[in-house]
C-alpha cells in the first residue's frame, strides 16, 4: 500500500500524521513536497494540518494552487482517496474539492482542546470502523474552522449524506454549546459526493494510543487501511 503525506511550507502535523500512518498501516508513507508535479501510483493521499504558506490570503488558499495540488486534484477526480485534516480540510475547500469554506472561528480565537464529534455515517472508507452515532473525542487546534456554505449547498450535502462528523456534546446531542467555532449545522467534517475525499477539522492522528491521551482517532486510519488493502 502506498500512502503519501503532502508537505507544504508551514505544515506542522505532517510528522505526527506519518507516525500514525506507519503505526497503523505498517508501512512508511512517502513525504511529498509541495513543488512536486508528478506522483507515483498511490492508494491514499493525506493533506496534514498546519499553517501552509503562513495562512497568507486565506487559510489553504495558496496551498490549493501549489503544483502538487494540481496532480492531487486530477487523481482525486479519478478516484484517489484523499484525507484532509484541519489545514488539509481548508486546502480541500479552497481547491474546490469539497463544498463550502472554513472561516474565522466565531469567537475569533485559536482553539486547541479535545472536542466531541458524532460520526454521522459509518458507510465510507474513512468511517467504516466507527458506528453511526458514535461520539469520539478528538482534539481541535485551529483559528479558521467555522464551516460555512450557502443554505442550498448545506441542504444538498445533508441530503446526499456528505456530512461525516458534527460537533456534539458528550451524549451525542448536536447543540450550539458544543459547537466550538460556529460551524453551520455543527459540521466538523464532510465528504465529497463520491465519499472518496474527507475533510475533517479535528486531529485524529493525535489520538491513536492511550499514551497520547486517547485512541478515538485510530479507527479512522483502520477504516482506510481496511478499505484500501
Amino acid at each position, binding site marked *: 500500500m502506498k500512502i503519501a503525506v503532502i508537505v507544504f511550507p508551514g505544515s506542522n502535523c505532517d510528522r505526527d500524521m506519518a507516525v500514525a500512518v506507519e503505526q497503523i498501516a505498517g508501512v512508511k508513507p512517502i513525504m511529498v513536497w509541495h513543488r512536486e508535479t508528478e506522483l507515483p501510483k498511490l492508494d491514499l493521499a493525506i493533506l496534514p494540518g498546519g499553517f501552509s504558506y503562513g495562512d497568507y*490570503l486565506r487559510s489553504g*488558499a495558496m496551498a490549493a494552487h501549489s503544483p502538487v495540488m494540481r496532480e492531487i486534484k486530477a487523481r482525486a477526480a479519478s478516484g484517489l482517496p484523499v484525507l484532509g485534516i484541519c489545514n488539509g480540510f481548508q486546502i480541500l475547500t*479552497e481547491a474546490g474539492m469539497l463544498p463550502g469554506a472554513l472561516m474565522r*472561528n466565531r469567537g*475569533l480565537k485559536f482553539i486547541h482542546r479535545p472536542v466531541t464529534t458524532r460520526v454521522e455515517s459509518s458507510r465510507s472508507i474513512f468511517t467504516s470502523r466507527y458506528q453511526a452515532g458514535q461520539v469520539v473525542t478528538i482534539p481541535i487546534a485551529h483559528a479558521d474552522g467555522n464551516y*460555512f456554505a450557502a443554505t442550498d449547498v448545506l441542504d444538498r450535502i445533508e441530503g446526499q449524506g456528505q456530512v461525516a462528523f458534527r460537533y456534539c456534546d458528550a451524549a451525542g446531542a448536536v447543540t450550539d454549546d458544543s459547537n466550538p467555532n460556529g460551524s453551520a449545522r455543527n459540521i466538523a467534517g464532510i465528504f465529497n459526493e463520491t465519499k472518496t475525499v474527507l475533510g475533517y477539522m479535528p486531529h485524529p492522528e493525535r489520538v491513536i494510543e492511550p499514551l497520547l491521551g486517547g485512541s478515538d482517532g485510530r479507527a479512522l486510519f483502520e477504516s482506510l487501511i481496511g478499505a484500501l488493502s
Partner: protein
Amino acid sequence: MKVKVHVTLKPGVLDPQGTAIGHALGSLGFAGASNVRQGKYIEFDLAETDPKAARETAKAMCEKLLANTVIENYAIDLA
C-alpha cells in the same frame, strides 16, 4: 496599469472580526457606527494597457485566487 481590488464578505456571511471592531469603536466612544464589515484591499501593477483586457484578467485572478467566491465578493478598480 494599476489594479485595485476590494474583497468583502458577502452580505449575510457572519463577520465576527467586523463585529469585534464595531464593539471596540463603541468602547472608544465612537457612537453611531454599526454594521462594521472587514475586508481586504489588494493592489498590483498589471502589464496591460487595454482597460477591458486588464479588467478581464483581474476578474479571472479574483475568481481563481484573490477572493473565495463562496463567502466573498470583489470589486475591481483600474487606475
